[in-house]
């Protein structure tokens, strides 16, 4: 082989290697330490051809009833290193192995004619996301942020990444950010929102579900929230079953034997009480629980609580300040207009509203559900 031929062969070899790289992107990279500046450093999501795609092994999932965040739509994913898996638990978050990377991308459907970085985005409360065929069409959505929850040796850490205007990369914003938005509904009416990207400590405000331990925990990755089907690229399947096939989950019972939170809008299959409790559980129960940061109030809204007084029935407020809205009880049966719970959900004043972080506008459909639930309750507070 002459020298020039050797060089050409080598060149060809290099080219084919590069082409192979192009076909199979670098795998997800778990960073056991440090705080990578760019979301792409993790390799969970990648942008190509105006689409946001998931890397190999990154599994999308949905919750029966999701948490409300200013009408943002969410693409949730989980990834685990090869050879390890999560352990099923019935009540709390699954026990995930070191190396797990959970992502949640917050985005809005775009209003026709509005650019990717326009303040004007669609306000839609549709249960269906824009994630189809394994990708988000970036010509149709505005990406806001991607939050990572990463399971390291020392525990979970939270990292908020904010997308650039070109929707090509997201940068770590540990101090959080406020994003001015104008939410436009189907009738063209607009409502301004100051979307808050939480700072890294504020992540702990919700994910620190045990205030004494201060350890962060996933909120949505519990049996009752995950017990549902998902439209995978390869077809519809139950999430537990799919995860088990992938080797991501061990010890799960059959879906029928696992707890299942209601879908908050599915009145055909769930009672008003089940839907309201599911909504309160995911939106409030991570703080308002016996161990959560909201336990100071004596109001517990997690799925396990059954005592009516603890759930707010005829309960007087503690340290609610002006969050009472001049009302006397958290829940007055049959009278949502007299119930503090409704007042605080229906407020967008940071000093009165609940939850304290995570939203700047009122979730009208959620408030309507809780109003209906309270209106249907019997009795009075004397």
């Amino acid at each position, binding site marked *: 082989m002459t020298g020039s031929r050797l060089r050409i062969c080598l060149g060809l070899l290099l080219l084919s290697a590069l082409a192979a790289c192009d076909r199979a992107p670098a795998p997800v990279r778990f960073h056991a330490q440090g705080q990578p500046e760019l979301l792409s450093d993790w390799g969970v999501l990648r942008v190509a051809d105006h689409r946001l795609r998931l890397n190999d092994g990154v599994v999308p999932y949905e919750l029966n009833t999701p948490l409300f965040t200013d009408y943002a739509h969410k693409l949730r994913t989980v990834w685990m290193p090869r050879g390890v898996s999560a352990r099923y638990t019935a009540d709390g978050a699954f026990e995930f192995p070191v190396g797990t990377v959970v992502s949640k991308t917050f985005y809005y459907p775009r209003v026709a004619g509005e650019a990717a970085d326009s303040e004007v985005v669609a306000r839609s409360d549709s249960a269906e996301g824009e994630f189809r065929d394994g990708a988000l069409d970036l010509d149709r959505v505005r990406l806001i942020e991607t939050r990572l929850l990463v399971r390291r040796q020392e525990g979970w850490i939270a990292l908020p990444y904010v997308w650039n205007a070109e929707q090509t990369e997201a940068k770590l914003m540990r101090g959080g950010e*406020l994003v001015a938005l104008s939410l436009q509904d189907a009738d063209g009416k607009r409502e301004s929102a100051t979307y808050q990207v939480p700072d890294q*400590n*504020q992540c702990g405000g919700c994910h*620190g579900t045990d205030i004494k331990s201060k350890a962060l925990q996933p909120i949505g990755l519990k049996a009752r929230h995950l017990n549902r089907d998902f439209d995978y690229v390869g077809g519809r399947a139950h999430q537990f079953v799919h995860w088990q096939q992938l080797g991501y989950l061990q010890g799960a019972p059959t879906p029928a034997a696992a707890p299942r939170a209601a879908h908050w809008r599915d009145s055909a299959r769930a009672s008003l009480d089940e839907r309201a409790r599911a909504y309160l559980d995911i939106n409030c129960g991570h703080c308002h629980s016996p161990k959560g940061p909201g336990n100071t109030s004596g109001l517990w809204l997690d799925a396990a609580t059954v005592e009516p*007084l603890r759930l707010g029935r005829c309960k007087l407020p503690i*340290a609610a*300040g*002006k969050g009472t809205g001049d009302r*006397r009880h958290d829940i007055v049966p049959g009278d949502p207009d007299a119930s503090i719970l409704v007042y605080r959900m229906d407020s967008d004043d940071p000093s009165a509203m609940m939850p304290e972080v995570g939203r700047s506008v009122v979730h009208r459909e959620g408030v309507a559900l809780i109003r209906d639930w309270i209106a249907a309750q019997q009795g009075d507070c004397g």
Partner: protein
Amino acid sequence: MSRLTLVFAIAIVLSACGRDAGPAHVPSAQVAAGDPAYAETLRTRLLDAKPGDVIEVPAGRYSFDRSLSLRVDGVTIRGAGPDKSVLSFKGQKAGAEGLLVNASNFTLENIAIEDSKGDGLKVNEGEHITIRNVRVEWTGGPSTKNGAYGLYPVKTRNVLIENSVAIGASDAGIYVGQSRDVIVRNSRAEFNVAGIEIENTVNADVYDNVATNNTGGILVFNMPALSQQGGAIRVFKNKVFKNNTANFGAKGTPVASVPAGSGVVVNSNDDVEIFDNDISDNATTNIIISSVYSTGYKDEQANKDFDPYPERISVYGNRLSGGGDAPDGLDLKALKVASYGLTGSLPDVLWDGYRNPKPAKPGDPNLCLRDVSGVLNADGPGGYKNPSKDMAAYNCTLPKLPAIDLKRG
């Protein structure tokens, strides 16, 4: 009455109301803006904090549109002085506190927090908390729009609040909730609904403080359906005067039931000692002892082990003067007129009259009163029909409570 005299009468009433409202609030400090970049630096330092860190906040005013938070143990945040280093939350758009702390061995000192949307400083869960030489203020004066609490440790243990100032809170200026082993001293609370409030807290010493121009000066409260019931509280050597600011708390809050002109209020607590204070000119009355029943609570709103009755409350050796002359609210006005005549005043102590029918220790007195001008048992259980001025039942002595020792060496 001719129209003219009626107008005069109204004018007199109005001007009297004006006087009753007390002096106007004047903001405490004018502080020049500091380096705006420091605001983000501080946020990052709170995120990156390691145990043992001392975060110095230089002189200047720093603005924040979102809450700050700290979750690392063993951190000190230290300013250049409460009138020099100011964290300003005027224009805050998100977050329910100015600074939210979930950490132990935390110290905040020599600094001010102004105009937060919600609470000024909230410390939720933690041990060994020190708040020293801190000012929390809503600079526009009393307003229902102000944040609820100024300094707000809750579910904490071993807490020292000293040399601090709280002004304008729409609930309580200094509020210690569901905590244990607490000292609040040498501090000032002014123009709040409640000046200093100790709620569901066990073992607290509140001394050498000034509480004036609040709706209620110093409150020792127990609320039902919480993690613990408080008790063993000493309130001594404080100056509690002219707490006559109209109640601007949101309705439905427990403090909204506090009549303007309340000096020291004990509600549903056991083992409270009130001594050696100067308490004066609180227009409803200088000392109120009550149960949750008279603030509108029902039994079914309490957990079953909640004790609504104030028991073993000891009041002695205070210097009490004035007050009781203009109680807040029609019921109390009527009670005053019925018991003491048009020109009379309520005595130093007002008790709603709810007494535990089954005291834990039979024979325990619920109230022991000395050195007071009198007491009025308002007969709450009897529908306020037969108030009693009889002092005989309160001539007793209770063992003194131990001093709080925070064991800080």
